[in-house]
């Protein structure tokens, strides 16, 4: 036990120190941008791991929830005089509330039905945003205010880095608590979990709401970082990226899924000249990993190094 704690300490402190020092060594604003987006995808992959990998709820709605938070925040900033921070918080609450609603519906939908419902829900949100262009500016995209009054990428780097560390810390603590055990019991068999006294209604909804809040956090960051939000980002393909990253990293391990998101975004960005072919490779890799390495590529490594599941 002691050794596990020590190894984990070394890994986590190493990752955090390494991350904190990146802007000291990386001066190119292009690569800082790539780092920032990589952390963003790391966070999204972690939200998907939280919901699917632990609670066993296969949802396509994460990106739609992100859009809801982003559009809410950007529209509030445009039409009201509310303080900037309040817009962000309301945006995050909005995606949390929609997550509550989906969580409530999912009590009746299991497995593939939930996936079907959330895929249709996501497309519905995208179609509404696309169509109501008087409000959302449609496919042209909605402009959003920047977080910082500077062109430097360094403040954004630290902002997403701190968001990522705090979000992962909170999700990690939840998953390591008895809630995490309840989630996994539901994932394995919700009827058995229920028979053993797990309040599955409550914990399924909690899993959805927590996931949605972190999707909202990622959403308001994405919106005010890129200063632009388009419904195109809500295409199923984006969700495919997030799911693929979590799966290839290892969906049943929060840290591995997050690292999968970070590393794959780097990989995709470095191979930019390959154009659409890198996505072909990504899709192929996803299929091969699911078929031959169901636990992902990083999760088994984590287990070997640390000696514990999470």
């Amino acid at each position, binding site marked *: 036990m002691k050794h596990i704690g020590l190894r984990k300490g070394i890994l986590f402190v190493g990752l955090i120190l390494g991350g904190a020092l990146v802007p000291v060594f990386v001066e190119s604003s292009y690569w800082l941008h790539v780092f920032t987006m990589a952390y963003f995808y790391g966070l999204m992959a972690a939200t998907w791991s939280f919901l699917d990998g632990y609670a066993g709820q296969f949802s396509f709605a994460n990106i739609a929830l992100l859009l809801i938070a982003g559009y809410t925040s950007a529209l509030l900033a445009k039409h009201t005089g509310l303080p900037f921070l309040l817009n962000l918080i309301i945006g995050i609450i909005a995606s949390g509330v929609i997550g509550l609603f989906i969580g409530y519906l999912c009590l009746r939908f299991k497995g*593939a039905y939930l996936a079907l419902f959330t895929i249709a829900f996501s497309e519905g949100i995208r*179609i509404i945003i696309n*169509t109501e262009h008087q409000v959302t500016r449609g496919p042209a995209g909605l402009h959003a205010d920047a977080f910082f009054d500077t062109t430097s990428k360094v403040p954004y780097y630290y902002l997403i880095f701190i968001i990522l560390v705090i979000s992962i810390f909170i999700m990690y603590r939840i998953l390591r608590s008895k809630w995490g055990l309840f989630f996994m019991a539901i*994932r394995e068999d919700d009827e058995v979990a229920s028979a053993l006294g797990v309040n599955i209604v409550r914990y399924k909804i909690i899993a959805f709401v927590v996931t949605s809040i972190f999707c909202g956090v990622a959403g308001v960051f994405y919106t005010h970082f890129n200063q632009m939000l388009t419904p195109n980002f809500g*295409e199923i393909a984006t969700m*495919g990226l997030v799911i693929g990253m979590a799966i290839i990293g290892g969906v049943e391990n929060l840290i591995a899924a997050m690292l999968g998101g970070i590393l794959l975004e780097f990989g995709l960005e470095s191979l930019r000249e390959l154009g659409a072919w890198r996505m*072909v490779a990504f899709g192929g890799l*996803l299929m091969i990993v*699911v*078929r031959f390495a169901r636990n992902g590529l990083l999760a088994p490594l984590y287990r070997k190094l640390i000696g514990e599941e999470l």
Partner: protein
Amino acid sequence: MYGLDYFFMQGANGLVIGCLYALMALGLTLIFSVLKVVNFAHGEFYMIGGYMSYFLVTLVGGVNPFLGVLFGMVVLLVIGSTFDYLFLRPMHRGEVDRPGEYAILLTFGLSFFLQNLVLAVAGPFPHRTPSFMEGGVRIGAISISADRLIAAGLALALMLALLTFIKLSWTGMAMRAVSQDQDAASVAGINPLRMSNIAFAIGAALAGASGALIAPIFGIVPDVGVLPSIRSFIIVVLGGMGSIKGAILGGIIIGLVESMGAAFIPDMSRALAYRQLYGLMIFVIVLLFRPRGLFGEAQ
């Protein structure tokens, strides 16, 4: 605001397009009933069908568009059978944990792979296969293009052929046996792995046929399959997962609802966009109040 003629017109269009929806949904429901798998790559099978027909007819040149449809179906038989053999077989054998999620991930991974493959090869620009036949038919106030009529007619013919195959042929009966009880079927000397493979291949080919038939009407781009696949999900949930009758009737109902529903929104561009949402509303209502759909078996 709209005359009676308009409703007849929309109704006729809805029926015609509903036949094509039904054909695609029939493939999805066939796969579900035999494999117990929801195929998330169904929209991409539809898209590939359209592209294959386009490639054969325009690139080879001088080929009859009907042969293009056939070619699309053959390619999808091969893709479907190969995919099932390589990726789904361990699941049929009961060798994977959480098989439901495994199937979603693999079919969704395939959809991501195929969509980007076509994007890489053919580019993002729309293509259109040449018409089956120029002109159209006019009955009273209703006029429908020949392409639509031919597409709907062929869709009906394919559906009839499939129904006959399932009802009368030995393979069809064996597939039905596997869909009812896999263990009992294998005791009776049926190879469930083989039946699953055939069902997946035929289901894929039906989606491909539907895409190839629609390609001359709407044209194709790499992500053209996304909305049709969601529509097929809605249709099979409405009709009842695994129900063939349900898929056909559901397809026609959704075709009619989309066409007629557009008339209730005055703004034209909104009407076009929001008819997708009618299906979504039906979907939620069915899932909440009658999850087994119109003809599905109770769980």
